[in-house]
Every structure is written in structure tokens, then in C-alpha cells.
């Protein structure tokens, strides 16, 4: 199996799981879904500089073959932002749960009763 197939299918599986979870009705699952989605996006961004194995991410005169460093910088920025956003969503969901007494995304407690946790 080629590296390309492996990365592509990993991104696909992560996106599928992320979208499924993000569409759920409870905040915890939505947060997990968004996290999976962001993993997929980071992998995707990383692959946008082409998949090159075992090469330095630097340009120098004596280096003929090098990995594109820019996507790595982009991924770093994206990771930092996603990390902050995930923390915010967790806090927000907690506050919302504590204030409204339900962890439904739309805050409707009536939907809550006949469901199993």
C-alpha cells in the first residue's frame, strides 16, 4: 500500500467520523467531532506540500531534494488555533450545561428525557 493511499484514507476516515460526531445533538460529541475534523484538516494541510519521506525541510545549496517547509508552518499555526478553539468550546459547553442544565446543543431539555447517556 502506498503512502498516498494511507494518508488519503486516514483523512477520509477522520473526516467521516468528525462530520458524524459534529452532527450529533450533544455538546461532548460535537466537541469530539470538531477535534477529529481538525486532525483531518491538519493532515490534509500537511500533505498539500506533497508527501516526501526522509528529506530535510530546508533549502540549502547542497540539498537537492527537500520537503516543503511552508505547509509545516501552516499546520503549526492551524494546530495552535484549533487547540485554543477546542479549549474554548469545552469551557463554553460546560458553562452552557451548568446554566441551562442540559448538554443538548440547542439547549432544549425536553429532548433530553428519553435518551440514554
Amino acid at each position, binding site marked *: 500500500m502506498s503512502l498516498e493511499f494511507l494518508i488519503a484514507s486516514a483523512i477520509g476516515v477522520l473526516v467521516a467520523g468528525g462530520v458524524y460526531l459534529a452532527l450529533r445533538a450533544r455538546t461532548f460529541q460535537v466537541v469530539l467531532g470538531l477535534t477529529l475534523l*481538525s486532525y483531518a*484538516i491538519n493532515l490534509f494541510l500537511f*500533505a*498539500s506540500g506533497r508527501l516526501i519521506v526522509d528529506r530535510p525541510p530546508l533549502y540549502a545549496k547542497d540539498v537537492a531534494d527537500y520537503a516543503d517547509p511552508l505547509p509545516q508552518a*501552516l499546520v503549526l499555526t492551524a494546530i495552535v488555533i484549533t487547540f*485554543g478553539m477546542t479549549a474554548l468550546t469545552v469551557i*463554553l459547553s460546560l458553562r*452552557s450545561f451548568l446554566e*441551562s442544565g442540559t448538554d443538548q*446543543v440547542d439547549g432544549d431539555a425536553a429532548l433530553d428525557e428519553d435518551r440514554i447517556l
Partner: protein
Amino acid sequence: MTALDHLAIAPIVTPVIAAPLALLAMRRRRWAGVAISLAGCAAMLIAALALFAVAQDEMIRAYPIGGWPAPFGIVLVLDRLAAGMLVLAAILASAVMGHAIVTGADRRGWHFHPLFHFQMLGLNGAFLTGDLFNLFVFFEVLLIASYGLMLHGQGALRMKAGVAYVVVNIVGSAIFLVALGLLYALTGTLNMADLARRVAALGGEDQALIRVAGLLLLTVFALKAAVVPLHLWLPRTYAATMPVVAALFAIMTKVGVYAMIRVVPLVFGNGAGAAAWVPAPWLLPAAILTTLAGFAGVLAARALREQAAFAIIGSTGTLLLAISCWTPATIAAGLYYLGHATLAGGALFLIADATLRRRGQYGDTIMPTPRFAGQDSAALLYLGVAIAIVGLPPLSGFVGKLMILHATADAAWQAAIWWTILGTTLIGVVGLARSGSLIFWKRADTEASAIACPARSPAEFAAPAVLLALLGGYTVAAGWATEQAQAAAAQVFAPSRYVAAVLGPEAAR
């Protein structure tokens, strides 16, 4: 570089300095924090006006940050469109800030002033940047600040709406990153000027992917602009947050529209081969639906803030009707309407705030109440702002809609556009007249409970009155404003000048 060149970064640096200073001063002396915040707003307005004056000479200026040459470093680009948006944002921000201080909205939580300035940092940066990834970063900055502002004052309802708002925007950011990844994989650059060049030179096998990237990018901008079917987050958020924050958010939907105007003619313009104008067939029907949904919401709304939120959707839809024809004349008409719609949307939220603060337990529900203090001033201002936002003469909404009708007279979808604009104007008039007469005209039954509300200062009417006066000035100066809009649209439709300004004259060929 002279000091004048460095002025281009002033709208970004000013809030960066003002926000932490206000945060530090707030702990010891409240008045000092407020003074720093006000000074920051004033400095931002002055810088924006100065840049607007600088941009009058038709030159497009690139400001390489840190002296790194494009496309390797990040550039800020100042042209007429960016300068106009900066002025618009600074004016709205000053009015909103004044209203927040007068009504004491900034005292409902700890960090109103720092968050406000970080919000302005994101807005100004998004208007100035010439790099797509940098645009993403500034979008994140303005979104993160907006999460804080939106939740300012707290409360269960606001928390619930906040969760939905944050989740929707995180998904939007994810889609933005996918589009950026695709564009980078195809072209090897994210500098907008460089992208314009490389998309035009792209080989045949990549055309399908570049179209996908363009449409994904447009989806993100449409989400920010609250275009149907991506508008559902807006009414809930704007109606749940404080009206003064919602008034500032009136410019947030316009950021999405600005990004479309900036990116589509430049990167996906005439030179882009098979990807040329790739969003055009999708945007126009969506704009028609947006206008209809917005004004239908104005008619159906049960509270003033909800109505104002739908009015913002409707006016953004009207604006996109003009933009999505993608000709210089329609973009010019759209840009004039954009300035009007931003100020009018902000004014509508501010007058809703002043009204609901006087109605005690009745809040902003559209129903008759016993007479409340300051009813006459509120009613007059509401009348003026309603006339402006729905587009009746004599205010600038009428001029703007007339210009859009005129500019789309030979468009392919002319009949649909005209019917939509004229029909929704009628719906909007009915909706706003209904709420105005129920709130300000009709008296409640005698058994209705008296309003329990502390006395409010008449100074609360100042900010909406100032915005209304500005709208009046915008109407009187419509000739001058139209010339400005046409010049800005002409620059937007000359992408080679943008490329030459950023990458040097030999790159534009």
C-alpha cells in the same frame, strides 16, 4: 520607506496596543481603561481617514511586513476598497463604543474594551492583508474576539446561542483550511497576487481541483456573510447577544462580502481559464433567496433585535444581488450600498437597544405597552432608521437600491433581481411599519402592568442619532460617494495593477 508608507500598518498596530493597555489599566482605574479604549478608537479613525486620503491617488500600495519581499513574506495591500472598508469599520466602531460607554454595556463584564479592540484588529487586518493564509488568521482573530464579545454579559440564553455560533464558525474555519490546502497544493503559493498569476497559468488536469478550491473558499465567505442556506446561525446569535455588540457585528457579514469582492475578480477573474468566475452561477440564486429570507424574517419577527438581525440578512442579500453580477458598474453600486447597509444595520441595533432599555419588563417584544419615557425621541429615530434600512426616499438606502436597479438593468437575471429588490422592499416596509406602530403608536390596554424601569439618560439616543445623521450625509454626498465606489470597483477589475503593486511591474505581464 517613509513614515507615510508605515501608516499602512497603523490600523493593525493601534488596536494591538490599545487592547492590552486597556486590559492593564482597567484593573486599577476604570476611567483610565475607558479613556485608552476611546483614544484607540479615535486613533483608528484618524489612521483610516489618513489612509483613505492616501489611497485617493489611484496607486495601489504594498507594505511588506518585516521587509520580506512578496511572495515570500506577508504583504499588506492598501487600495481604495481596503481604505474605504477601514473608514467604515472605524466609524461604526466609534459610534458603537460611544453607545456602549453611555449605556454602561461595557460594565456588564470585565473585558469588553480589550475584546472590542481585538475584534477591530481582526477586521482591519482582514481588510488590509494580501495573503490568503493571513486572511484566515485575521478571520480567526476577529472570530475569537467576537466569541468573547457575543458572550459578554452572559446568561443561559446567550450561552446556548454561543455554543451554536462557535461550532458553526469552527466548521467554517475547517473548510477555509481545506480550500487553502488545495490552493497551495495546486499553485505553491498563498499570496493573492501570486495566486492570480499562477491560477491563470494552471494546466488542464488541475482545472477541476481549482474549481473545487474556489467554491470551497466562496462557501466560507458565504458563511461569514450569512448567505442562504448558511444564514441560520445569524438571527439566533445576534438576537441573543447584547444589542450594542450586535451593532458592531453589522460589519461582520460585510467582511465576508469584502473577501468575495477581493478574491473573486483577482484570483478567479477573466484570466483564470476554466476557473473564471466559478462562483457566479451559485451566488446569484443564493443572493435572491437571502434577500427574500431576510425580509420575510423582518415581517415575521416578534422582537426588535430579531427583526434587526433579519434586516441585516436582507440587506446583505440585496448587496450580493449587485455583487454577484460581477461587472464594474454593479460592484460600484454594491459598494455604495455596502456603506449604507453597515451603518443602517448598526443604527437599527442601537435604537433597538435604547428602546428596550426604556421598556423595562417588556424588553424589545413587538407589542403595545403603556407610555414609556423618551418614547417620542425613540419613535422618531426608529422611523428614520427604518426608512434608511428598507430603502425609502429620502435616505441613502433608496439611493443605493436605485443604483443597484440601474446597474443590473442589462443583467441576464434582470427581471428576477428587480422583482426581488422591489418585492422585498415592500415586505420590509410592511414589517417595520407593523413593529413601529405596535411599539410606539398603539397604547396598551389599561390593565397592562406599568413599566418598571429606572430612569435612562437621553444621551443614549446620541449614537443612533449620529449614525442616522451620517446616513443623511451619505445621501447628500451620494455623488462623491458614487465616484469613490466606481474608482474602487475599477481598481478591483484591474487585477494586473494589484499584481504589479505586490510583485513588481515585470510580474504583471
